[in-house]
């Protein structure tokens, strides 16, 4: 975008960029530095040996995988129905769904909390998985429908003429053909579920059911503000996400950009 013909302008641009990135590096350095204070590497060992530490990861994985599975199936089925099948008053259903697109999740916690208490769902995985899925589905359906609209009807007609029933068409044609958008959407749901903090904080109040975003608080309570250990736990928690991002950069960015560039 910027034209840098001379060597000097190239160096100036590089310098500006390097200065601009400093505020991004400072917290990461502070985090690493503090996590080694005192006992050095043994802070990390101590954190890893805390009973229940793997449980936080396991809980997050369960919630993320279940949310992804629900959103994946519900989204592709709905995109198929909205785009390629006959539904009376289809657009009315679609608009009811899209009206929830920009709903802030905090609006749901008071009613869902009292409902979860009544139904005995408080502290169960479902109390977090269902709201996550509900909040993601309008968005994923919107993007998936746009994508499926782009697949020619003729493909589906040909399959129907060959005698495939709707179920078969869904699995053998729609699912494989919509893989690119599905991957981008699943990456988005994964980030959302992995990073969600408010919903688990309200609904998973028991330490045994905690998720990774609650780890810093867990350590604060257990170890009375042992800051190096809290930060060691943060580093350990951040690493899987950073590795996932670096490995799947393009899918991450496509997923995030898909929402805004329509």
């Amino acid at each position: 975008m910027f034209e840098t013909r001379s060597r000097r302008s190239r160096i100036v641009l590089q310098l500006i960029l390097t200065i601009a990135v400093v505020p991004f590096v400072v917290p990461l350095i502070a985090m690493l530095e503090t996590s080694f204070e005192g006992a050095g590497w043994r802070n990390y060992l101590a954190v890893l040996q805390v009973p229940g530490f793997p449980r936080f990861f396991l809980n997050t994985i369960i919630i993320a995988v279940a949310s992804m599975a629900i959103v994946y199936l519900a989204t592709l089925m709905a995109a198929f129905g909205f785009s390629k099948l006959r539904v009376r008053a289809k657009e009315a259903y679609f608009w009811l769904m899209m009206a929830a697109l920009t709903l802030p999740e905090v609006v749901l916690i008071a009613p869902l909390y009292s409902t979860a208490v009544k139904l005995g769902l408080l502290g169960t995985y479902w109390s977090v998985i269902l709201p996550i899925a509900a909040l993601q589905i309008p968005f994923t359906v919107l993007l998936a429908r746009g994508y499926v609209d782009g697949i020619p009807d003729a493909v589906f007609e040909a399959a129907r003429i060959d005698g495939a029933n709707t179920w078969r068409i869904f699995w053998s044609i729609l699912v494989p053909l919509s893989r690119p958008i599905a991957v981008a959407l699943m990456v988005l749901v994964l980030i959302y579920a992995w990073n969600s903090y408010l919903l688990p904080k309200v609904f998973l109040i028991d330490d045994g059911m905690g998720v990774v975003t609650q780890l810093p608080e867990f350590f604060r309570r257990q170890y009375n503000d042992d800051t190096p250990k809290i930060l060691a736990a943060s580093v350990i928690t951040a690493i899987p996400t950073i590795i996932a991002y670096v490995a799947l950069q393009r899918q991450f960015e496509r997923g995030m950009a898909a929402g805004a560039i329509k």
Partner: protein
Amino acid sequence: MTTTLDRSVGSDRKRPPAREGGHARRRARLLPGGLRWILPGFAISVGLIYYSIVYSGYLSFFDWRGGRALMTPVGFGNYMTALGDPVLWTALRNTIIYFVVVFVVQVAGGTLFAAAMHSNVRFANVYKVLVVIPVVVAPATLAPAQIQVWQSDGTVNRVLGALGLSGLEQSWIGQSTTSLLVVVLVGCWGAIGYGFILIYAGMSQIDPELIEAGRLDGAGNLRTLYSIVLPSLRPIIVSLAILNFITALKLFDNPWLITQGGPAHSSEFLGTMIYSETASTDRNLGYASALSILVLVIAVAVSIIMQMRGRERVARSSTTRKEVEDV
């Protein structure tokens, strides 16, 4: 966001019957029914969300501590309390400040990084990963790092001390004059990477010939950025405005983890208020519901207004651009 779609989807839908006449309708009748395919997603999302909103509206007319406690009907009492609650007005003021500052910094910073990385720079990917880390890693995970930066013996104060500016050292998080500043700056830190990704993707879609033409006409780097690149990014910037506003309205993670909304409610946001009323020991679920309904009304109203104004401006800018191209 919603309304943009309305147009594109709506126009797509109307076109085929007009072109193909009765054929399309006959074909549509031959299609298998799709209601049960829509139903699972519809039940989970629309079911749960609309149920919550309706139930929230109902609860907002009661005082209720949850569980088996007595529900006392109070009419519009909770709404009246909310509107007379100075904390709500502080939270609204903070929300607006947060939105404006983070949005401006996000667009400016995102554009700078995106433009630089579209140019010929070394180690572009290293910069990119560093800028995007606060977007992909949970705020809850990174908040302890930010506390480390801003606390009394943290990085900022140490740097100020080393620069001989120890007079400026202060307890950034612990005093009501600067707590909001910390939350806003941490918000910018997390938002620039997101703006960068969207603006970077948007810049890739700009026709290189357009930029080349500008260059031939003698436009420099900044002129190109301002007169060619930014106008093409307008739809993305409108999206970012709406997304940022919704983020500010529901903000919870960072203020809660860094300042707990304090001291003395100075960094309170609607998200932290609703959370306290829902989950603290002296909760009032009715009041939390009334606040939720207020947030909902603001969210819907503002996204509609921004969407409409954004669309007008997009329409106007695209016609002017077309005129320019025609000439």
